[in-house]
C-alpha cells in the first residue's frame, strides 16, 4: 500500500528530469534556484499532505484555495484590529491573530466533517459551498484591498531562512514527517485507509468512520490555514485574490503521487514526490522561457499521464475491484 512500485518509477522520472534540466536549463542546478523550487512548492505541498489523507479517506476538500486566502486576510484583519483598537503591540497581536486564524481553519474543517457525518452531505458539496463562501468572506474582510498591518519581522515566516533553508520549506518538511508517521504508524492512519477502502466493512470492524473522516477534513483545513498564514507573510498582506485555483493544483499533486480518487489507496510519500515533480517542471519551464499558456497544457498532460501510469500498474497487480 505505501510501497507501490510505481512510486519509485515517479521518483526515477523526477531524478531524470532534474538531470535533464541541469543540462539544458541555465541556472537550474544552483542552490539558490533549488531552494526557490522548494519554497514555491512548500505552501501547496503542506496542503497536499493533508489532502492526501482526505482523499484516501474517500472524501475531497475543494475549499483549500479559498481557505488560504481567507486565513491570510483573517490574520491580517485580526492583527490590525488587535493592534489599533486594543492597542496591543504587534509582537503580541500578530501571534494571537495567527493562532485564531489556524483555529478557525480547524473549526471549519470539523464543521465539514460534522455535516458529512450527521446529514450525509458529501464533502464535495460542503467544501464547494465553503470555497465560494470563504472567497466572499475574504473580500468582505479586506473590502477588496490588501490589508497590510503586519510588522516587519512577520516576513520571516514566509520569506525568511533558517540555516539557509526557507522557513516554509522547513514547515513543509515538518508536516511531511508528521503526516507520514500518522499515516504509516498509527491506528488513525490505518483507519483512514480502511474507511476509504470500504466504509461499511470498517464500521463493522469497530472503526468510528465519521470521526476518522472528520479528523482528516479538520487536519487539512488546519493545514490550509497554516499555508494561508505563511502566504500572507510572504506577500506581507492579507489579499483576497491570492491562491485562486490552488485546490486543483493540490489535488493534481496528490493524484500524480499515486493516490486514488476513489479512496483507500495512496501515500503521503507519493504526494511529496508529486509536489516536487510539479514544482520542478514549472520551474524548469519558466527557466526555459516556456510561455505560461504552454505550462498549463503541460501540466494537464502530466496529470493524465500520471493517472494512466497508475492504472497500468494497478492493472498489473490484480484488479482489486473485480477479483474474486
Amino acid at each position, binding site marked *: *500500500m505505501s510501497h507501490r512500485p510505481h512510486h519509485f518509477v515517479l521518483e526515477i522520472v523526477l531524478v531524470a528530469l532534474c538531470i535533464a534540466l541541469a543540462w539544458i536549463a541555465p541556472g537550474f542546478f544552483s542552490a539558490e534556484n533549488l531552494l526557490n523550487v522548494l519554497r514555491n512548492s512548500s505552501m501547496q505541498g503542506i496542503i497536499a499532505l493533508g489532502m492526501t489523507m482526505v482523499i484516501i479517506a474517500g472524501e475531497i476538500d475543494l475549499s483549500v484555495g479559498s481557505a488560504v486566502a481567507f486565513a491570510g486576510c483573517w490574520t491580517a484583519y485580526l492583527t490590525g484590529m488587535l493592534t489599533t483598537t486594543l492597542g496591543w503591540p504587534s509582537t503580541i497581536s500578530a501571534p494571537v491573530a495567527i493562532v485564531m486564524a489556524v483555529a478557525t481553519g480547524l473549526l471549519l474543517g470539523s464543521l465539514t466533517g460534522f455535516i458529512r457525518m450527521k446529514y450525509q452531505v458529501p464533502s464535495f458539496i460542503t467544501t464547494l459551498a465553503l470555497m465560494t463562501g470563504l472567497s466572499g468572506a475574504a473580500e468582505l474582510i479586506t473590502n477588496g484591498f490588501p490589508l497590510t498591518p503586519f510588522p516587519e519581522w512577520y516576513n520571516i515566516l514566509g520569506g525568511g531562512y533558517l540555516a539557509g533553508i526557507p522557513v516554509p520549506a522547513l514547515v513543509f518538511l515538518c508536516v511531511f514527517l508528521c503526516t507520514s508517521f500518522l499515516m504509516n*504508524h*498509527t*491506528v*488513525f*492512519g*490505518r483507519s483512514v*485507509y*480502511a474507511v476509504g*477502502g*470500504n466504509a*461499511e*466493512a*470498517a*464500521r*463493522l*470492524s*469497530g*472503526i*468510528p468512520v465519521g470521526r476518522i473522516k472528520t479528523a482528516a477534513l479538520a487536519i487539512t483545513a488546519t493545514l490550509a490555514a497554516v499555508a494561508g498564514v505563511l502566504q500572507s507573510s510572504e506577500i506581507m498582506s492579507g489579499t483576497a485574490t491570492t491562491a485562486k485555483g490552488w485546490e486543483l493544483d493540490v489535488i493534481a499533486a496528490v493524484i500524480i503521487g499515486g493516490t486514488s480518487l476513489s479512496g*483507500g*489507496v495512496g501515500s503521503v510519500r507519493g504526494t511529496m514526490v508529486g509536489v516536487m515533480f510539479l514544482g520542478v517542471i514549472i520551474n524548469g519551464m519558466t527557466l526555459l522561457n516556456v510561455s505560461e499558456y504552454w505550462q498549463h497544457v503541460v501540466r494537464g498532460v502530466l496529470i493524465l499521464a500520471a493517472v494512466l501510469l497508475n492504472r497500468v500498474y494497478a492493472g498489473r*497487480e*490484480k484488479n*482489486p*475491484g473485480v*477479483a*474474486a
Partner: protein
Amino acid sequence: MTLLELQNISRVFPGTVALKEFSARWEGGKIHALIGRNGAGKSTLVNILTGALPPTSGTILLNDAPLRFRSPADARRAGIAAVYQELSLLPDLDVVENVHLGRLPVRKGALPGRVDWKAAERHTRDLLDRLHVSLPLHTPLRHLSVARQQLVEIVKAMGSAPGILLCDEPTSALSYQEARCVFALLRTLADEGVLVVYITHRLQEIRSFADTVTALRDGISAGTTPSAEATPERMVTMMFGEDVRFTRMVDHSPSSSVVLEVRRMTRKPAFTDVSFSLHAGEVIGIAGLMGSGRTELLRTLAGADTPDAGDLVLHGQPCVPQSPAQMKRLGVVMTPENRKDDGLITLLSTRINISLASLDRLAPHAITSRRRERECVTRMQKELDIALSDPERPVSSLSGGNQQKVVLGKWLATDPHVMLLDEPTRGIDLKAKAQMFQTILRLSRQGIGMIIVSSELEELLLLCHRLLFMQHGRITGSADASSTTLETLLARCMESS
C-alpha cells in the same frame, strides 16, 4: 403448444463438469420447477438456455427444431426470456419506461428518434391488462415494494412476447405472501401457453404452484416428477441421492453456562420478540429462509443495527447493542453474509485486514506495529490453514475460501466469546468448506458459543447442537439437531403460513 427438449446437455469448465448429460422435456402452458443444492448446475443450465454459455455437447430442441445460440440475442430471437433475483430495473424511472427499456417506440416524422410516449403507455397498459396485474404506470419504481418491482421485471420480460420464460429464484428475497402475487402472474402466463421454468431454493413453494419438479444433483438430472407427488422425502432424495444419512460432525456437549441470552429482541420490520439463550461451546443453527429475518437478527446482535426493543444478557450484565465496537469489546462478533461488501477491505493487504478488528491489542498507545501484526497473521494462518503467499498482497488476490478464512481470522483475533456466522460457506470450494466445518467445531469445543445461518439445511444438521426455526421474523420453535432428519427439517421449513 411449445415443447422444449434438452438432450444430453453437458458443460465442462476447466477442472469441473458443471452439467453432465442433462435431459429434460418441458411442455408449454406449465410451470416447471427446477431444484438442486448450490453448485448443482442450475445456473449453468439457465446460462445455456439464454445463450450466455454454449453447451460443450448436447442438443436443445424447440418444437422438434434444433436450436443453436451464438449469443444471448439469438436466444431472445428464439423467444426465450429470463428473470433473475437481482433486479435489472432503473429505480428512478416509472413502469412504462422500465418495461420499454432499450426498445422505446419511436415516432415517425420530421424529428427522428422522438419517443412515442402514447404508444409506450398503451402498450404497457395492454400488457398489464392481459396479465391481470395492476401497477401504477407513472410512479418511480423506488416507491414500489420489492415484490411489485419483481412483477415489473416479469412484465418487462414478457414485453417481447417470449414463448419461454426462465425464472432464476425471483422470489428468494420475498416473503411468502409477497411471493404469491408473483406466482399468480406466472400462472396467468402459463395459462396463456407460456413455458415457465422456475428455479428455486424454497421447496415449500413448489407444490402450491408448479406443475412438475425436476431436480439436479451434481450436474446430473435426478428425474422429473409431477409436483403433486413431490413430498419432502421425495425432494430430499432427488436433491441428495438415496443415501442421505449424514455423519454428524458435532461430537461434544455444550457447557451448562450461558454465554449469551437474548431477551425479547425486536427490530421492525425484520424480526419481533426473539428470545433464546446460547451456552458456551454450543452451536445453534437458525433454520429459516432468506427474508425470514435471520440475517437482520445476527446483525442486531453484533451491533451493526440497533434494536427497537429487547436486550441481551452477557456475562450476567444486561446490555443493548449500540455499535459494532461495543459488541466487539463484549466479545460478540459476526462474520457477515457478504464478505466483499461488509467483511473485507479488498484493496488492502491480508495483514491489514486480519489485524483490523484487534488493533486495540496489536497497537498499544495507538501506534501500529508491523511485527505484532505479522505475528497475528501467522497465528491465524496456522489456526485456520490460510493459503497465503504474501500477507502484504491485497486480500482480493486470495480465493473465496481463503478470503472467508481471513474474515473469520479477523474476528478470531479479537478473542470472542460468541461468534455469529452468516452463511460461512457461501461461494467457497469443497475443501475450504470441510475446513470451515472443522474450524467451527474446534472453536466451539474451546468454549466459543456459535450461531450459524445457512441456506444449506444439511450443513446445519452436520454442525449444530440445536436448531431454531425462524419464519417471518419470529422464532417458531426449536429442535435438537441430533434427532432431526433432513426430511423433517425440510418438512418443518415447508409448512409455511
